[in-house]
């Protein structure tokens, strides 16, 4: 497009500069520029604008590479897929088997999946419960006292958590449906962030985990670690996280007595 004087328009100069013109149009612009100093001066001016802008833009802080962020995304993708797979398997009983060869593969998958079972324990199954967060900032996490955060898991959701872990008729008072990432640290009340923790098994109880969560929240609010790091540590392996922060192999006695949550009834 030429302007009233037959020169290349500013827009076309811009498009040519950014390589956005088709080859024949770009060639036409180049040909005109070869003969036209005013047009070249205008193009140089636009290029100068690029340099000025990049002087500012280039100074914006480059976020540090974060392997944890990619790992978290990977875990969430896996969770998404395993949930879809589980939904398909559960829904299969009422469906007419489509093709024999295909259904045989599915059947093997059902048997394998069923035989592998899913054990409830102090650490959740990383595929069923990779952790899920709400979008909150550190300020928001620190603005609310932990006891003000709704920690009650709705009964229907708790039932689905037990279903997911293949636990039938859980005895009242024997489990707590616990958050992997606690609500006070941005954990979501979602299937991916909940698992049944047996009270009777071992020393790594949800009480010990509560003590760790209070400790992590203190660190976040004191600005010593960021919220994402606290969430990642909890969701990766909270027991290792506890050992690291309290420098001990076993839970401290006062933490084993730490009582905060009521059991799932």
């Amino acid at each position, binding site marked *: 497009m030429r302007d009233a004087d037959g020169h290349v328009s500013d827009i076309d100069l811009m498009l040519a500069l950014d390589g956005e013109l088709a080859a024949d149009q770009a060639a036409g612009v180049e040909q005109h520029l070869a003969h036209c100093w005013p047009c070249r001066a205008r193009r140089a001016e636009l290029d*100068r*604008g690029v340099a000025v802008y990049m002087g500012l833009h280039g100074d914006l802080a480059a976020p540090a590479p974060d392997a944890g962020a990619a790992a978290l995304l990977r875990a969430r993708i896996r969770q998404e897929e395993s949930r879809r797979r589980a939904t398909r398997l559960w829904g299969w009983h009422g469906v007419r088997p489509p093709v024999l060869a295909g259904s045989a593969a599915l059947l093997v998958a059902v048997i394998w999946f069923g035989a592998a079972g899913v054990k409830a324990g102090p650490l959740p199954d990383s595929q069923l419960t990779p952790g899920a967060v709400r979008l909150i900032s550190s300020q928001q996490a620190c603005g609310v006292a932990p006891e003000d955060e709704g920690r009650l898991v709705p009964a229907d959701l708790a039932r689905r958590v037990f279903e997911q872990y293949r636990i039938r008729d859980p005895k009242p008072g024997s489990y707590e449906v616990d958050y992997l990432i606690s609500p006070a640290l941005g954990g979501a009340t979602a299937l991916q962030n909940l698992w049944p923790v047996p009270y009777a098994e071992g020393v790594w109880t949800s009480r010990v985990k509560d003590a760790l969560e209070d400790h992590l929240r203190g660190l976040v609010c004191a600005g010593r670690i960021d919220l994402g790091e606290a969430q990642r540590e909890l969701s990766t392996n909270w027991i290792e996280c506890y050992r690291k922060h309290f420098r001990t192999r076993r839970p401290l006695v006062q933490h084993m007595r730490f009582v905060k949550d009521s059991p799932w009834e």
Partner: protein
Amino acid sequence: MTGAGRTQPDPLGDEVVALFQTLRPGVLRYLASLGTPGEDGEDILQETFLALYRHLRDGKPRDNLPGWVFRVARNLALKRMRGEARAAGEALEVEIADPAENPEERAINRERLRSVQAVLAALSGVDRECLFLRAEGLGYREIAAVLDISLGSVAASIQRALGRLARASNRWK
């Protein structure tokens, strides 16, 4: 952890995670410029790429993926800020991050810098976002898709904004 050993090959997951690593710095800077820095930006980034995974898994179009990512991240950021602004009872104001925070800036001629920044601040939001996205390496077609405007508008925004920046800088040569 009973499920740890049950990983299966997932080429689509690999692709999405690879794209995440490539685009993460640029999208985080963009989110910061829109007003959602730090952890907020990281959260939005996670949601965006999980949405990308679902998008591709469901066989939806895979052309212009960087544009798709920037657009979804932008929508999530704006949605979130609208929610926060409502909660705080304040008007939504989108400001570009203040580059004067960087100590390296002090070496530059302050008056010139101030003048250029004033021009940048006076640009329309669309002009400023076009510049930002172009500087992050997006093509015009991708920028048009992110901001939901025409190709012609992108070219006009960038040309207008660069012209003003150059003139502001020239005054202090």
